[in-house]
Each structure stands twice: as structure tokens, then as C-alpha cells.
């Protein structure tokens, strides 16, 4: 019996939690979420290198919340999601029991925000090198080339909103896209509607995205839309010294300011 299974069994038994969100084997070598409440569900829990999905989005789902006190298996991105959600008053301290899977497979438990914050301070939260390269490649292009690149990518988009649904930070009951007075973002999935949607979403995640990559993974049309928000991470860090999801009481980069914020384009 793995440590995880032991631990979760104990948590369920002593009623620390009512349900635990972890991973199970899915179809065709996929890994998927499982909501463990019973003995036999516990046995399905797995933990391996492929368990990368950021499960925190489920903490915001109505029916999952209804399961009672939740425990969750988290990776670094998930910890950061929790911090960010906390800073936006969506999760309260102590509300969720967090088990963190270390690289060596051992588990660390976090029962309060403070300990997550401390942990994150010494953790690598950067984006993957492939993604960095991709961003660099795009940045090296001319503006027009980038326009064409994204035009082609957005053309594929079918506005299924899987990206939004998968993103832990997209928890609004009514997304801007769904607001119809006025209809800021065309509902239609034509070129304009797609561009508007992606620009809008990227801006709304600027400074909030915890670079978990769920959005791009979720996209059935394989659009690298995570690059949009990833690209903003370093300028936000550089100009405002802010990184999303590091502290439970952090101020959002775009709702604060410094009188001497530096820019070079305003005349």
C-alpha cells in the first residue's frame, strides 16, 4: 500500500476530510481526476510522473464543494493556484487539506497557507524551457509574423471554452464572454470573436496565471494559448515585482501600483 493510499485512508477515516481529489488511471494511458470518498476509490489512487494535472479547478466546482471538506493532491502549480485563489478570497485558510507530492514521491502535508507560502519561496516556479524557447522564438519574429502565427492558431479555436473551464483561475460565474450587455466579446467563433476572447482572457489572467498549463493541455485544438499568459509573467515580475500565487494575502499586480512604476511609452 502506497504512502498516499495510507495517508488518504487515514484522513478519510478520522474525518479530517470527506473527499480527496487525486489521480487515477484513465483511458488510453491518460491520468485523470478521482474524487475519493470510499475504500475502493482509495485503492485507485495513483501517483507518478504523469500526474501533472492541476486539480485545483475542482475546488471551485459546486458539486465538488458539496462533497464536504476536501483534500487535494497538489503539485507546485496547484499550490500556487491555491495561494492565488486565497488572495482573491475564494478559499479560506484551513478550508482545504493539501498533500504535496515531492519529486521523490514522498508527501508533504500543508494544512495552512503560511506553510505553503514558506514552501513556495524556495521552489522553482518558472516555466518549462520548451515554453521559454517558444516564447523567445515568437518574440524574435516581426510583429506581422506574430500576427500571422496567432491568426493561424486562433483560427483553429472552436470556442469550446475548455481552456477556461480547465483554468483554476477562471472561476467567474459569468465570464466576460458571457456578458451580453454589451456583448463585449462576440460569441461567434469567427476570427474576431476568437481573437477577442483570447486577448480578453489573457489580460484577465495577466498577473494571476500560475503557469500550470492546464488551458493549453485542455485545448482540443492544440492551441498554445498558455504562451499568451506565460509571456506576461516575466514583464510583470520585472516591472512590478509581482508573481502570481506566491502568497495568500498578496495584492494583485494590476490592482496595485507604485507611483514610480516605470514605463517608456507614455509621452
Amino acid at each position, binding site marked *: 500500500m502506497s504512502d498516499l493510499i495510507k495517508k488518504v485512508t487515514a484522513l478519510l477515516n478520522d474525518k479530517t476530510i470527506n473527499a480527496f481529489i487525486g489521480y487515477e488511471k484513465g483511458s488510453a494511458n491518460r491520468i485523470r481526476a478521482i474524487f475519493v470518498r470510499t475504500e475502493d476509490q482509495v485503492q485507485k489512487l495513483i501517483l507518478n510522473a504523469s500526474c501533472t494535472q492541476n486539480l485545483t479547478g475542482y475546488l471551485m466546482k459546486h458539486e465538488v464543494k458539496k462533497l464536504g471538506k476536501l483534500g487535494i493532491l497538489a503539485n507546485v502549480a496547484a499550490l500556487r493556484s491555491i495561494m492565488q485563489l486565497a488572495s482573491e478570497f475564494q478559499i479560506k485558510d484551513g478550508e482545504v487539506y493539501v498533500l504535496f507530492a515531492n519529486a521523490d514521491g514522498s508527501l508533504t502535508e500543508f494544512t495552512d497557507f503560511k506553510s505553503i507560502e514558506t514552501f513556495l519561496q524556495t521552489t522553482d516556479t518558472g516555466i518549462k524551457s520548451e515554453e521559454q524557447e517558444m516564447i523567445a522564438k515568437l518574440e524574435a519574429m516581426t510583429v506581422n509574423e506574430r500576427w500571422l502565427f496567432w491568426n493561424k492558431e486562433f483560427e483553429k479555436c472552436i470556442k469550446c471554452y475548455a481552456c477556461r473551464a480547465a483554468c483554476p483561475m477562471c472561476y467567474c460565474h459569468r465570464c466576460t464572454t458571457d456578458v451580453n450587455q454589451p456583448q463585449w466579446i462576440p460569441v461567434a467563433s469567427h476570427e*474576431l470573436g476568437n481573437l477577442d476572447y483570447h486577448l480578453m482572457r489573457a489580460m484577465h489572467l495577466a498577473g494571476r496565471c500560475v503557469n500550470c498549463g492546464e488551458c493549453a493541455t485542455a485545448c482540443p485544438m492544440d492551441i498554445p494559448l498558455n504562451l499568451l499568459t506565460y509571456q506576461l509573467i516575466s514583464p510583470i515580475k520585472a516591472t512590478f515585482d509581482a508573481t502570481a500565487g506566491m502568497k495568500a494575502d498578496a495584492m494583485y*499586480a494590476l490592482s496595485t501600483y507604485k507611483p514610480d*512604476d516605470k514605463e517608456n511609452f*507614455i509621452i
Partner: protein
Amino acid sequence: MQEFEPKIVAFVCNWCTYAGADLTGTSRIKYSANVKIIRFPCTGRIDFMILMKAFENGADGIIVSGCHPNDCHYSTGNFHARRRWIVFRNLLNFTGIDTERIQFSWVSAAEGFKWADVVNNTVKKIKEIGPYENYNKIAVSTLFNEEGATNE
């Protein structure tokens, strides 16, 4: 061929730039008629989506202007706006949208001359770069074309 007359929208705050543009008027300083102003209470009110909407309705250029830092009528609106623009410009640039076409400026109620300069320089610049074809191609009005959104 007729000279290209760019469509430029200016989003300005009520207290500084709008008043500054009023001063340009009272001082009878001339500037190009291509720029039309939409008034906002504060630069803080200017949602980034407003800029997107301007392009997609056919603007070739945009001016966004408000009070100088520390002069905001509401103390901090322009500071928030500035952060927003810093990030939004990054995003636009990364998605291949021409940030050259958006001129941000601080124009106070006393800077009538500066307003005329901002306008004239922006018009000049946009005339040089030409119509915003990339965006026009996907603009709302394309839906009315033959190819429109009908049959894929």
C-alpha cells in the same frame, strides 16, 4: 488617389486631457481633425477591451491620455491605468498587434499645446504606417461581405 485619412479615437480622462484639449481649443491651436475624443471620468476607467473595440470597429490609431502621475483627480486612477497599459501593450505586441498605433500620453489641463502635438504627431505617424489592414480584415464589418461567415 485620395490621401489616406486615418480614423483615430482618443480616450481621455475628464479632468486633465479633456480639459487640456478644451484649452487647446480656447487657445485656438490648430490640429488635425482625424482625432475624435471619447470622454471618460478617469484613465482608470479605460478598460483594455475599449481599445480592442476601437480597432475592430475600424480605428487605425488610438490615443489614450490622462493626468500626469500624481495629478489624478481621483489620486490613483492613472497609476492603475499605467500598470494596465504596461501589461496590455506587452500582450498586444506578443499577439502581433501593432502597438505603434496606440499612443499613450499624459496631458494636463494646462497643456493645450501638448495636446495638439500629441494629436498631430499621432496622425502623422499613422498616416505613415497606413490603414490597419490586419485588423480591418477581421473587423465586424467583414461579416457583411459576401464571404462573410456563411459557408465555410
